[in-house]
Protein backbone atom coordinates (compact mmCIF):
# COMPACT_ATOMS: atom_id res chain seq x y z
CA UNK A 1 0.00 0.00 0.00
CA UNK A 2 2.41 2.61 -1.28
CA UNK A 3 1.84 6.28 -0.69
CA UNK A 4 -0.07 5.60 2.51
CA UNK A 5 1.05 6.95 5.85
CA UNK A 6 1.49 4.76 8.88
CA UNK A 7 0.78 5.38 12.53
CA UNK A 8 3.55 4.81 15.11
CA UNK A 9 1.80 1.51 15.96
CA UNK A 10 2.05 0.00 12.48
CA UNK A 11 4.47 -2.75 13.59
CA UNK A 12 2.21 -3.62 16.51
CA UNK A 13 -0.73 -4.09 14.15
CA UNK A 14 1.31 -6.32 11.85
CA UNK A 15 2.48 -8.42 14.79
CA UNK A 16 -1.14 -8.82 15.90
CA UNK A 17 -2.13 -10.06 12.44
CA UNK A 18 -4.35 -7.10 11.63
CA UNK A 19 -5.93 -6.69 8.22
CA UNK A 20 -4.76 -3.28 7.06
CA UNK A 21 -6.79 -1.09 4.72
CA UNK A 22 -6.37 2.42 3.35
CA UNK A 23 -8.33 4.98 5.37
CA UNK A 24 -8.00 8.76 5.13
CA UNK A 25 -4.56 8.39 3.57
CA UNK A 26 -3.33 6.03 6.29
CA UNK A 27 -2.77 2.30 6.35
CA UNK A 28 -5.07 1.36 9.24
CA UNK A 29 -6.18 -1.87 10.94
CA UNK A 30 -9.79 -2.64 9.97
CA UNK A 31 -9.86 -5.79 12.11
CA UNK A 32 -7.55 -8.08 14.03
CA UNK A 33 -9.66 -11.22 14.37
CA UNK A 34 -13.32 -10.45 13.80
CA UNK A 35 -15.31 -7.22 13.73
CA UNK A 36 -18.13 -8.94 15.65
CA UNK A 37 -15.77 -10.20 18.37
CA UNK A 38 -14.07 -6.82 18.69
CA UNK A 39 -17.44 -5.06 18.81
CA UNK A 40 -18.64 -7.41 21.56
CA UNK A 41 -15.38 -6.95 23.49
CA UNK A 42 -15.96 -3.18 23.58
CA UNK A 43 -19.63 -3.46 24.62
CA UNK A 44 -18.96 -6.14 27.25
CA UNK A 45 -15.36 -5.61 28.42
CA UNK A 46 -12.94 -3.27 26.67
CA UNK A 47 -11.26 -2.65 23.33
CA UNK A 48 -8.10 -0.77 22.43
CA UNK A 49 -8.07 1.27 19.22
CA UNK A 50 -5.20 3.03 17.49
CA UNK A 51 -6.68 6.26 16.19
CA UNK A 52 -3.37 8.05 15.77
CA UNK A 53 -4.40 8.98 12.24
CA UNK A 54 -6.60 11.70 13.71
CA UNK A 55 -5.28 15.25 13.70
CA UNK A 56 -4.34 17.49 16.64
CA UNK A 57 -4.36 21.25 16.10
CA UNK A 58 -3.34 23.54 18.97
CA UNK A 59 -4.36 27.20 19.13
CA UNK A 60 -2.50 29.44 21.54
CA UNK A 61 -2.25 33.13 22.22
CA UNK A 62 -4.16 36.10 23.62
CA UNK A 63 -6.73 35.86 20.79
CA UNK A 64 -6.91 32.05 20.64
CA UNK A 65 -10.16 31.78 22.57
CA UNK A 66 -11.84 34.54 20.57
CA UNK A 67 -10.63 32.93 17.35
CA UNK A 68 -11.90 29.50 18.39
CA UNK A 69 -15.19 31.11 19.39
CA UNK A 70 -15.56 32.48 15.87
CA UNK A 71 -14.50 29.20 14.24
CA UNK A 72 -16.61 26.78 16.26
CA UNK A 73 -20.34 26.20 16.59
CA UNK A 74 -20.04 25.36 20.30
CA UNK A 75 -19.39 27.90 23.06
CA UNK A 76 -15.63 28.17 23.71
CA UNK A 77 -14.99 30.95 26.25
CA UNK A 78 -17.33 29.29 28.75
CA UNK A 79 -15.48 25.96 28.52
CA UNK A 80 -13.64 25.36 31.77
CA UNK A 81 -10.03 24.26 32.01
CA UNK A 82 -9.88 20.48 31.87
CA UNK A 83 -13.15 20.11 29.99
CA UNK A 84 -13.97 18.94 26.46
CA UNK A 85 -16.72 20.00 24.07
CA UNK A 86 -17.93 18.62 20.77
CA UNK A 87 -18.39 21.22 18.07
CA UNK A 88 -18.43 21.90 14.37
CA UNK A 89 -16.30 24.05 12.13
CA UNK A 90 -18.80 25.56 9.69
CA UNK A 91 -18.34 27.47 6.46
CA UNK A 92 -20.22 30.70 5.66
CA UNK A 93 -23.13 28.67 4.24
CA UNK A 94 -23.46 26.67 7.44
CA UNK A 95 -21.99 23.55 5.84
CA UNK A 96 -19.70 21.45 8.02
CA UNK A 97 -15.96 21.83 7.39
CA UNK A 98 -15.34 19.25 10.12
CA UNK A 99 -16.66 17.95 13.42
CA UNK A 100 -14.14 18.17 16.23
CA UNK A 101 -13.57 17.83 19.95
CA UNK A 102 -12.24 20.90 21.70
CA UNK A 103 -10.03 20.69 24.81
CA UNK A 104 -9.50 23.73 27.08
CA UNK A 105 -5.87 23.26 28.06
CA UNK A 106 -5.21 26.73 29.51
CA UNK A 107 -6.73 30.19 29.59
CA UNK A 108 -5.22 31.03 26.22
CA UNK A 109 -4.73 27.51 24.82
CA UNK A 110 -7.04 24.96 23.20
CA UNK A 111 -6.57 21.63 21.42
CA UNK A 112 -8.79 20.56 18.54
CA UNK A 113 -8.89 16.87 17.70
CA UNK A 114 -10.00 16.59 14.08
CA UNK A 115 -10.80 13.91 11.51
CA UNK A 116 -7.76 12.47 9.74
CA UNK A 117 -9.36 13.05 6.36
CA UNK A 118 -9.72 16.74 7.19
CA UNK A 119 -6.53 17.62 9.06
CA UNK A 120 -4.96 19.57 6.19
CA UNK A 121 -8.27 21.21 5.22
CA UNK A 122 -8.95 22.23 8.83
CA UNK A 123 -5.44 23.58 9.28
CA UNK A 124 -5.83 25.78 6.19
CA UNK A 125 -9.34 26.85 7.18
CA UNK A 126 -8.28 27.76 10.70
CA UNK A 127 -5.13 29.55 9.53
CA UNK A 128 -7.23 31.64 7.13
CA UNK A 129 -9.64 32.67 9.89
CA UNK A 130 -7.30 33.23 12.84
CA UNK A 131 -5.85 36.50 13.96
CA UNK A 132 -2.12 37.01 13.48
CA UNK A 133 -1.56 36.84 17.24
CA UNK A 134 -2.76 33.23 17.44
CA UNK A 135 -0.20 30.47 17.02
CA UNK A 136 -1.60 27.45 15.17
CA UNK A 137 0.40 24.26 15.63
CA UNK A 138 -0.32 21.00 13.82
CA UNK A 139 0.96 18.30 16.19
CA UNK A 140 -0.67 15.40 14.33
CA UNK A 141 2.59 13.73 13.28
CA UNK A 142 4.18 13.80 16.71
CA UNK A 143 1.04 12.71 18.56
CA UNK A 144 -0.38 9.23 19.09
CA UNK A 145 -4.00 8.71 20.07
CA UNK A 146 -5.32 5.50 21.60
CA UNK A 147 -8.96 4.91 22.47
CA UNK A 148 -9.61 2.56 25.37
CA UNK A 149 -13.34 1.91 25.24
CA UNK A 150 -15.76 -0.29 27.13
CA UNK A 151 -17.04 -0.86 30.67
CA UNK A 152 -13.72 -2.29 31.95
CA UNK A 153 -11.73 0.72 30.73
CA UNK A 154 -11.55 2.48 34.08
CA UNK A 155 -10.38 -0.65 35.91
CA UNK A 156 -7.65 -1.11 33.29
CA UNK A 157 -6.44 2.48 33.21
CA UNK A 158 -6.75 3.52 36.86
CA UNK A 159 -3.70 1.60 38.16
CA UNK A 160 -1.51 3.08 35.40
CA UNK A 161 -2.11 6.74 36.16
CA UNK A 162 -0.96 8.74 39.14
CA UNK A 163 -4.28 10.29 40.15
CA UNK A 164 -7.87 9.39 40.93
CA UNK A 165 -9.34 8.63 37.50
CA UNK A 166 -12.89 8.62 38.88
CA UNK A 167 -12.56 12.41 39.25
CA UNK A 168 -12.30 12.78 35.47
CA UNK A 169 -15.91 13.14 34.46
CA UNK A 170 -17.46 12.51 31.04
CA UNK A 171 -16.02 15.05 28.59
CA UNK A 172 -13.28 16.07 31.01
CA UNK A 173 -9.54 15.38 30.83
CA UNK A 174 -6.34 15.42 32.82
CA UNK A 175 -2.71 15.81 31.84
CA UNK A 176 -0.78 13.15 33.68
CA UNK A 177 1.71 10.31 33.38
CA UNK A 178 0.87 6.81 32.22
CA UNK A 179 3.53 4.29 33.19
CA UNK A 180 5.96 7.20 33.33
CA UNK A 181 5.01 8.76 29.97
CA UNK A 182 3.40 12.17 29.53
CA UNK A 183 -0.20 11.79 28.35
CA UNK A 184 -3.49 13.61 28.18
CA UNK A 185 -6.36 11.35 29.23
CA UNK A 186 -9.95 12.30 28.46
CA UNK A 187 -13.17 10.50 29.28
CA UNK A 188 -14.45 10.65 25.71
CA UNK A 189 -14.96 8.25 22.84
CA UNK A 190 -16.86 7.24 19.76
CA UNK A 191 -18.67 4.13 20.96
CA UNK A 192 -21.22 4.87 23.73
CA UNK A 193 -19.48 2.15 25.69
CA UNK A 194 -17.66 4.40 28.18
CA UNK A 195 -13.92 4.75 28.28
CA UNK A 196 -11.03 7.05 27.58
CA UNK A 197 -8.96 8.58 24.85
CA UNK A 198 -5.24 8.84 25.53
CA UNK A 199 -2.99 11.32 23.72
CA UNK A 200 0.75 10.82 23.96
CA UNK A 201 4.00 11.45 22.17
CA UNK A 202 4.22 9.40 18.96
CA UNK A 203 7.57 8.08 20.17
CA UNK A 204 5.82 6.65 23.27
CA UNK A 205 2.99 5.01 21.30
CA UNK A 206 4.29 1.45 21.51
CA UNK A 207 5.05 1.70 25.22
CA UNK A 208 1.59 3.15 25.92
CA UNK A 209 -0.08 0.43 23.84
CA UNK A 210 1.93 -2.24 25.66
CA UNK A 211 1.16 -0.84 29.11
CA UNK A 212 -2.56 -0.79 28.32
CA UNK A 213 -2.51 -4.25 26.70
CA UNK A 214 -0.70 -5.74 29.68
CA UNK A 215 -3.01 -4.10 32.18
CA UNK A 216 -6.05 -5.11 30.12
CA UNK A 217 -5.20 -8.78 29.73
CA UNK A 218 -6.90 -9.71 32.98
CA UNK A 219 -10.00 -7.75 31.95
CA UNK A 220 -10.50 -9.31 28.52
CA UNK A 221 -9.21 -6.28 26.62
CA UNK A 222 -9.02 -6.89 22.87
CA UNK A 223 -7.33 -4.84 20.16
CA UNK A 224 -10.11 -3.37 18.03
CA UNK A 225 -9.99 -2.02 14.49
CA UNK A 226 -11.81 0.54 12.42
CA UNK A 227 -14.49 -2.00 11.47
CA UNK A 228 -15.71 -2.31 15.05
CA UNK A 229 -15.20 1.42 15.57
CA UNK A 230 -17.65 2.02 12.73
CA UNK A 231 -20.34 -0.42 13.93
CA UNK A 232 -20.01 0.95 17.48
CA UNK A 233 -20.35 4.58 16.43
CA UNK A 234 -23.27 3.69 14.18
CA UNK A 235 -25.09 2.04 17.11
CA UNK A 236 -24.38 5.24 19.04
CA UNK A 237 -25.73 7.23 16.04
CA UNK A 238 -22.61 9.39 16.09
CA UNK A 239 -21.94 11.05 12.74
CA UNK A 240 -18.93 10.17 10.60
CA UNK A 241 -17.52 12.96 8.47
CA UNK A 242 -17.86 12.09 4.79
CA UNK A 243 -21.02 10.10 5.52
CA UNK A 244 -23.44 12.07 7.68
CA UNK A 245 -21.47 15.33 7.45
CA UNK A 246 -19.77 17.25 4.65
CA UNK A 247 -19.23 20.78 3.39
CA UNK A 248 -22.76 20.85 1.92
CA UNK A 249 -24.56 19.51 4.99
CA UNK A 250 -25.54 21.70 7.92
CA UNK A 251 -25.59 20.80 11.63
CA UNK A 252 -29.34 21.50 11.65
CA UNK A 253 -29.91 18.88 8.95
CA UNK A 254 -27.70 16.51 10.94
CA UNK A 255 -29.75 17.26 14.06
CA UNK A 256 -26.72 18.55 15.92
CA UNK A 257 -28.37 21.83 16.98
CA UNK A 258 -27.52 21.18 20.62
CA UNK A 259 -23.88 21.72 19.65
CA UNK A 260 -24.63 25.03 17.92
CA UNK A 261 -24.80 28.36 19.78
CA UNK A 262 -27.45 29.62 17.34
CA UNK A 263 -28.57 32.53 19.50
CA UNK A 264 -25.18 33.52 20.85
CA UNK A 265 -24.14 35.11 17.61
CA UNK A 266 -20.80 35.41 16.03
CA UNK A 267 -19.35 32.26 14.57
CA UNK A 268 -18.74 31.52 10.93
CA UNK A 269 -21.95 30.17 9.45
CA UNK A 270 -24.23 31.44 12.22
CA UNK A 271 -26.19 33.74 9.92
CA UNK A 272 -26.87 31.02 7.38
CA UNK A 273 -27.88 28.61 10.14
CA UNK A 274 -30.26 31.13 11.74
CA UNK A 275 -31.88 31.66 8.35
CA UNK A 276 -32.12 27.88 7.92
CA UNK A 277 -33.77 27.55 11.31
CA UNK A 278 -36.35 30.19 10.28
CA UNK A 279 -37.12 28.47 6.98
CA UNK A 280 -36.84 24.97 8.42
CA UNK A 281 -34.11 22.54 7.30
CA UNK A 282 -34.91 20.94 3.95
CA UNK A 283 -33.94 17.46 5.15
CA UNK A 284 -33.25 15.67 8.39
CA UNK A 285 -30.96 12.89 9.49
CA UNK A 286 -32.87 9.89 10.81
CA UNK A 287 -31.97 6.55 12.29
CA UNK A 288 -33.85 3.51 11.03
CA UNK A 289 -34.07 -0.19 11.72
CA UNK A 290 -34.43 -2.55 8.77
CA UNK A 291 -37.40 -4.84 9.28
CA UNK A 292 -37.19 -6.83 6.05
CA UNK A 293 -34.49 -9.08 4.67
CA UNK A 294 -31.49 -7.05 3.53
CA UNK A 295 -28.74 -4.83 4.89
CA UNK A 296 -28.85 -1.06 4.35
CA UNK A 297 -25.55 0.36 3.13
CA UNK A 298 -24.34 3.89 2.43
CA UNK A 299 -25.71 5.22 -0.89
CA UNK A 300 -28.78 2.99 -0.97
CA UNK A 301 -31.91 4.99 -1.81
CA UNK A 302 -34.63 5.51 0.79
CA UNK A 303 -38.11 5.42 -0.75
CA UNK A 304 -41.72 5.95 0.23
CA UNK A 305 -44.40 4.33 -1.96
CA UNK A 306 -41.87 3.67 -4.70
CA UNK A 307 -40.57 7.25 -4.88
CA UNK A 308 -37.02 8.03 -3.76
CA UNK A 309 -37.04 10.49 -0.85
CA UNK A 310 -33.47 10.26 0.42
CA UNK A 311 -30.25 8.32 0.79
CA UNK A 312 -28.63 6.08 3.36
CA UNK A 313 -25.44 7.68 4.70
CA UNK A 314 -24.31 4.74 6.87
CA UNK A 315 -25.71 1.25 7.25
CA UNK A 316 -24.57 -2.02 8.75
CA UNK A 317 -25.80 -4.98 10.73
CA UNK A 318 -25.99 -3.95 14.40
CA UNK A 319 -24.18 -6.62 16.39
CA UNK A 320 -25.90 -5.49 19.60
CA UNK A 321 -29.46 -5.37 18.22
CA UNK A 322 -29.04 -8.32 15.88
CA UNK A 323 -30.61 -6.50 12.95
CA UNK A 324 -29.52 -4.02 10.32
CA UNK A 325 -29.58 -0.33 11.20
CA UNK A 326 -28.79 2.83 9.34
CA UNK A 327 -28.67 6.59 9.20
CA UNK A 328 -29.90 8.64 6.28
CA UNK A 329 -31.33 11.94 5.15
CA UNK A 330 -35.05 12.28 4.36
CA UNK A 331 -37.45 15.22 3.99
CA UNK A 332 -38.68 16.52 7.37
CA UNK A 333 -42.12 15.05 6.66
CA UNK A 334 -40.65 11.55 6.64
CA UNK A 335 -38.47 12.07 9.70
CA UNK A 336 -40.91 11.30 12.52
CA UNK A 337 -40.22 8.26 14.67
CA UNK A 338 -42.37 5.39 13.42
CA UNK A 339 -42.33 6.48 9.76
CA UNK A 340 -42.11 3.53 7.40
CA UNK A 341 -39.47 3.77 4.70
CA UNK A 342 -38.14 1.35 2.13
CA UNK A 343 -34.42 0.83 1.70
CA UNK A 344 -33.68 0.03 -1.94
CA UNK A 345 -31.26 -2.91 -1.78
CA UNK A 346 -30.22 -4.13 -5.24
CA UNK A 347 -33.53 -3.00 -6.70
CA UNK A 348 -35.66 -4.56 -3.97
CA UNK A 349 -37.68 -2.46 -1.52
CA UNK A 350 -36.77 -3.65 1.97
CA UNK A 351 -39.05 -2.27 4.72
CA UNK A 352 -37.52 -0.14 7.47
CA UNK A 353 -38.85 2.11 10.23
CA UNK A 354 -37.57 5.39 11.66
CA UNK A 355 -36.61 4.94 15.33
CA UNK A 356 -35.25 7.01 18.20
CA UNK A 357 -31.48 7.37 18.26
CA UNK A 358 -29.04 6.39 19.59
CA UNK A 359 -29.77 2.76 18.76
CA UNK A 360 -27.69 1.71 21.76
CA UNK A 361 -27.41 3.94 24.83
CA UNK A 362 -24.19 4.45 26.73
CA UNK A 363 -23.40 4.85 30.42
CA UNK A 364 -23.46 8.67 30.24
Amino acid sequence: MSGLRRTPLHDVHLALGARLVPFAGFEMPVQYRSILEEHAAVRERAGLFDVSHMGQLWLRGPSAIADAERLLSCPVASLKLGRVRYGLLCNEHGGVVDDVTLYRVAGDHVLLCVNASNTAKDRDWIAAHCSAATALRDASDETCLLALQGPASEAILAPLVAFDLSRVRFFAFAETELAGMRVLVSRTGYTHAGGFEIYGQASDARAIWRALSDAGAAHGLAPAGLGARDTLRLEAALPLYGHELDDETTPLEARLERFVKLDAGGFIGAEALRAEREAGPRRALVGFVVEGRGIARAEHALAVAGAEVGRVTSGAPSPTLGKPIGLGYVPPLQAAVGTKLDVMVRGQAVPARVVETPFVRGPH
Partner: protein
Amino acid sequence: MAKYEIPDDLYYTREDEWARVERNRVTIGITDYAQQQLGDIVFVELPELGRTLDRGEPFGVVESVKAVADLFAPLTGEVVEVNTGLGEAPDGVNADCYGDGWLVVVQLSDPAELEQLLSPGDYAQHVKDRE
Protein backbone atom coordinates in the same frame (compact mmCIF):
# COMPACT_ATOMS: atom_id res chain seq x y z
CA MET B 1 0.16 -24.21 7.74
CA ALA B 2 -0.82 -22.28 4.63
CA LYS B 3 -2.55 -18.99 5.19
CA TYR B 4 -5.47 -20.02 2.98
CA GLU B 5 -6.83 -23.47 2.39
CA ILE B 6 -7.06 -24.39 -1.30
CA PRO B 7 -8.21 -28.03 -1.69
CA ASP B 8 -6.63 -29.99 -4.55
CA ASP B 9 -9.84 -31.54 -5.85
CA LEU B 10 -11.75 -28.37 -6.76
CA TYR B 11 -11.97 -25.93 -9.64
CA TYR B 12 -11.73 -22.18 -8.94
CA THR B 13 -12.64 -18.80 -10.44
CA ARG B 14 -10.80 -15.52 -10.44
CA GLU B 15 -13.74 -14.17 -8.41
CA ASP B 16 -12.96 -16.62 -5.57
CA GLU B 17 -15.68 -19.23 -6.07
CA TRP B 18 -14.92 -22.94 -6.00
CA ALA B 19 -16.69 -25.73 -7.89
CA ARG B 20 -16.78 -29.41 -6.93
CA VAL B 21 -17.72 -31.57 -9.92
CA GLU B 22 -19.44 -34.93 -9.36
CA ARG B 23 -20.58 -36.18 -12.77
CA ASN B 24 -23.07 -33.49 -13.88
CA ARG B 25 -23.67 -32.05 -10.45
CA VAL B 26 -21.51 -29.08 -9.50
CA THR B 27 -21.46 -27.75 -5.95
CA ILE B 28 -20.44 -24.09 -5.70
CA GLY B 29 -19.13 -22.05 -2.79
CA ILE B 30 -16.68 -19.30 -1.96
CA THR B 31 -13.04 -19.94 -1.10
CA ASP B 32 -11.24 -19.71 2.20
CA TYR B 33 -9.42 -16.64 0.88
CA ALA B 34 -12.78 -14.99 0.09
CA GLN B 35 -14.34 -15.76 3.46
CA GLN B 36 -11.24 -14.54 5.30
CA GLN B 37 -11.14 -11.35 3.26
CA LEU B 38 -14.82 -10.69 3.91
CA GLY B 39 -14.70 -11.41 7.63
CA ASP B 40 -17.84 -12.20 9.64
CA ILE B 41 -20.52 -13.13 7.10
CA VAL B 42 -23.95 -11.91 8.18
CA PHE B 43 -26.12 -12.27 5.07
CA VAL B 44 -26.33 -14.59 2.09
CA GLU B 45 -28.70 -14.11 -0.84
CA LEU B 46 -29.00 -17.12 -3.16
CA PRO B 47 -31.00 -17.84 -6.35
CA GLU B 48 -34.23 -19.82 -6.40
CA LEU B 49 -34.35 -23.47 -7.33
CA GLY B 50 -34.81 -24.02 -11.04
CA ARG B 51 -33.17 -20.80 -12.16
CA THR B 52 -30.59 -21.24 -14.90
CA LEU B 53 -27.31 -19.50 -14.27
CA ASP B 54 -25.13 -18.35 -17.15
CA ARG B 55 -21.41 -18.63 -16.65
CA GLY B 56 -20.05 -15.35 -15.24
CA GLU B 57 -23.50 -14.06 -14.30
CA PRO B 58 -24.01 -12.56 -10.82
CA PHE B 59 -26.25 -15.06 -9.04
CA GLY B 60 -26.25 -13.94 -5.44
CA VAL B 61 -24.61 -11.89 -2.74
CA VAL B 62 -22.57 -12.56 0.36
CA GLU B 63 -22.36 -9.73 2.91
CA SER B 64 -20.06 -9.38 5.88
CA VAL B 65 -20.32 -6.72 8.56
CA LYS B 66 -18.43 -4.28 6.37
CA ALA B 67 -18.48 -5.58 2.80
CA VAL B 68 -20.83 -6.74 0.05
CA ALA B 69 -19.55 -9.33 -2.45
CA ASP B 70 -21.34 -10.45 -5.60
CA LEU B 71 -21.29 -14.14 -6.43
CA PHE B 72 -20.54 -15.05 -10.06
CA ALA B 73 -21.61 -18.34 -11.62
CA PRO B 74 -18.50 -20.39 -12.39
CA LEU B 75 -20.47 -22.51 -14.87
CA THR B 76 -23.73 -22.53 -16.81
CA GLY B 77 -26.47 -24.70 -15.38
CA GLU B 78 -29.78 -25.03 -13.62
CA VAL B 79 -29.87 -24.59 -9.84
CA VAL B 80 -30.96 -27.94 -8.41
CA GLU B 81 -30.13 -27.36 -4.73
CA VAL B 82 -29.79 -24.28 -2.52
CA ASN B 83 -28.18 -24.19 0.92
CA THR B 84 -31.22 -22.62 2.59
CA GLY B 85 -29.72 -23.14 6.04
CA LEU B 86 -27.41 -20.19 5.39
CA GLY B 87 -30.44 -17.88 5.57
CA GLU B 88 -30.56 -18.37 9.32
CA ALA B 89 -26.87 -19.12 9.86
CA PRO B 90 -24.82 -17.24 7.26
CA ASP B 91 -21.69 -17.60 9.41
CA GLY B 92 -21.66 -21.22 8.24
CA VAL B 93 -19.68 -19.90 5.27
CA ASN B 94 -16.94 -18.69 7.63
CA ALA B 95 -16.99 -21.89 9.64
CA ASP B 96 -16.73 -24.39 6.77
CA CYS B 97 -16.60 -22.75 3.36
CA TYR B 98 -15.70 -25.97 1.50
CA GLY B 99 -18.18 -28.13 3.43
CA ASP B 100 -21.40 -27.12 5.18
CA GLY B 101 -20.95 -23.56 3.93
CA TRP B 102 -21.59 -24.53 0.28
CA LEU B 103 -23.99 -22.22 -1.59
CA VAL B 104 -25.76 -23.97 -4.50
CA VAL B 105 -25.63 -27.07 -6.66
CA VAL B 106 -26.12 -26.67 -10.39
CA GLN B 107 -26.73 -29.21 -13.10
CA LEU B 108 -23.83 -28.72 -15.49
CA SER B 109 -24.98 -27.95 -19.05
CA ASP B 110 -21.66 -27.73 -20.87
CA PRO B 111 -18.73 -29.76 -19.50
CA ALA B 112 -16.42 -27.92 -21.89
CA GLU B 113 -16.76 -24.88 -19.63
CA LEU B 114 -14.69 -26.64 -16.98
CA GLU B 115 -11.61 -25.83 -19.06
CA GLN B 116 -12.21 -22.17 -18.40
CA LEU B 117 -11.82 -22.61 -14.64
CA LEU B 118 -8.60 -22.28 -12.64
CA SER B 119 -6.66 -25.22 -11.27
CA PRO B 120 -5.76 -25.18 -7.56
CA GLY B 121 -2.21 -24.14 -8.50
CA ASP B 122 -3.37 -21.29 -10.72
CA TYR B 123 -5.80 -20.14 -8.07
CA ALA B 124 -3.06 -20.19 -5.40
CA GLN B 125 -1.00 -17.94 -7.68
CA HIS B 126 -4.02 -15.66 -8.19
CA VAL B 127 -4.38 -15.33 -4.41
CA LYS B 128 -0.68 -14.65 -4.00
CA ASP B 129 -0.80 -11.91 -6.66
CA ARG B 130 -3.30 -10.00 -4.55
CA GLU B 131 -1.53 -10.34 -1.23
